[in-house]
């Protein structure tokens, strides 16, 4: 049937008829064509394809993890694992009374620091503007960085956060997932840290497997007994 999930590659006709094209599909005549490798989904009146590969493209309100590359006297530049660099203005960190003479940017964030940030604004004309002035955002002091493919982030989170909750519960680790595929794992015990990292890497490698949740569960629980 039409509403079944389908594996598609670029150029495949997902469906025909009066549907609204959403992510990664284009309307060509009355055919809806996939533009990427992925899994097609038809919801009510809209069609989209969940990509299985590709770079991170910033979206407004996404939580990302960035690495400070450099700074000028007014702003920082962050590597956000995308084709664009993240732009973090100094006012965002120092507040509105920021003065380029009095405040030294490197006192707050130095090159190489990891930052949890949110995409505040992004359009085609300028580099993405990011912010750290929100709860749970800002410099990351501890934890290990794991890099996964950005297209596999939804799989790591799972349905309503089920997958990541399972990993956190089993290992007692705190996991911060950036939509750009960078994940920071921190845990009080080194065993938990290793186990959580291993689970995340496993999801990255086996994202297309159907019963992945069971496999991850198995891996985490077998280790629990030993």
């Amino acid at each position, binding site marked *: 049937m039409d509403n079944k999930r*389908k594996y598609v*590659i*670029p*150029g495949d006709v997902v469906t025909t008829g009066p549907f609204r094209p959403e992510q*990664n599909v284009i309307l060509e005549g009355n055919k809806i064509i996939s*533009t*990427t490798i992925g899994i097609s989904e038809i919801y009510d009146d809209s069609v989209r394809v969940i*990509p299985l590969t590709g*770079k991170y493209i910033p979206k407004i309100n996404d939580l990302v993890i960035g690495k400070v590359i450099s700074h000028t006297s007014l702003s920082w530049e962050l590597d956000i694992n995308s084709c664009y660099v993240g732009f973090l203005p100094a006012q965002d960190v120092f507040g509105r009374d920021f003065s380029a003479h009095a405040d030294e940017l490197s006192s707050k964030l130095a090159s190489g620091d990891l930052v949890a940030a949110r995409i505040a604004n992004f359009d085609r004309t300028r580099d993405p503007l990011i912010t750290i002035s929100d709860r749970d955002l800002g410099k990351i002091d501890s934890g290990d960085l794991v890099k996964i493919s950005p297209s596999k982030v939804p799989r790591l989170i799972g349905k309503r956060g089920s997958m990541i909750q399972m990993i956190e519960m089993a290992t007692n680790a705190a996991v911060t997932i950036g939509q750009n595929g960078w994940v920071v794992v921190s845990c009080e015990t080194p065993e938990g840290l290793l186990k959580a990292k291993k689970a995340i890497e496993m999801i990255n490698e086996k994202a*297309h497997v159907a019963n992945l949740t069971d496999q991850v569960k198995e891996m985490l629980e077998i280790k629990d007994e030993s």
Partner: protein
Amino acid sequence: MGGRDATMVLLDENGIRCDGRKVDETRRIMIRAGGLKNADGSAYIEFGDNKILVGVFGPRDVHPKHMSNTDTGILRVRYHMEPFSVGERKNPAPSRREIEISKVIKEALEPAVMLEKFPRTAVDVFIEVLQADGGTRCAALTAASVALADAGIPMRDMVAAVAAGKVADTVILDVNNEEDQAGQADMPIGYMPSLDKITLLQLDGVLTPEEYKKCVDVGVKGCKIVYELQKKALNDKYFGNGGD
């Protein structure tokens, strides 16, 4: 070139070609998606005795900066033949022919790739011909399209390519090296199967209008065969055994 005398038998009386193929048969084709770890996307193709490796990077920052376009991304293609890819050592510096083929492949991919989604960036395609045996531009274009899909770059359609031609006054599919050298015409065709559009069409040789039409038809049919193999390569990598 047209009308050149053939010394070898390119087509015998049973309609069998110099390498044992029928007139409408392609060479053995094997495509594999992925394989290069450091590239964002990659593909390897064996098209008869052609062996070609393609790596795709991007979208990424444009260097030098002045080449970037604020309205759209840019596509850069480098087609390169290894010194050991042909009988006599080839100078590794880009030749006139390689520069032309780079341009031709770039322009054949551009209608398919949705570069307007990534303004101010570049997508780089590197094509390395490891072994050449006639029809490398078609094989390279086919593999480049698989590598672009593997890199996750949005595309309207895949581009499949194969050459049609004329030897011994007969229209044939997939011209090999001997047929290219001694044959009467060679027509590489790049084709988007789902959109039913041609993105590359070159012709070296002389054809009558009827032969021209037949050549295009035969070539498009060949492209559809190649497209099935592209599909299989991507399905194998992403969905295990053949997808749905």
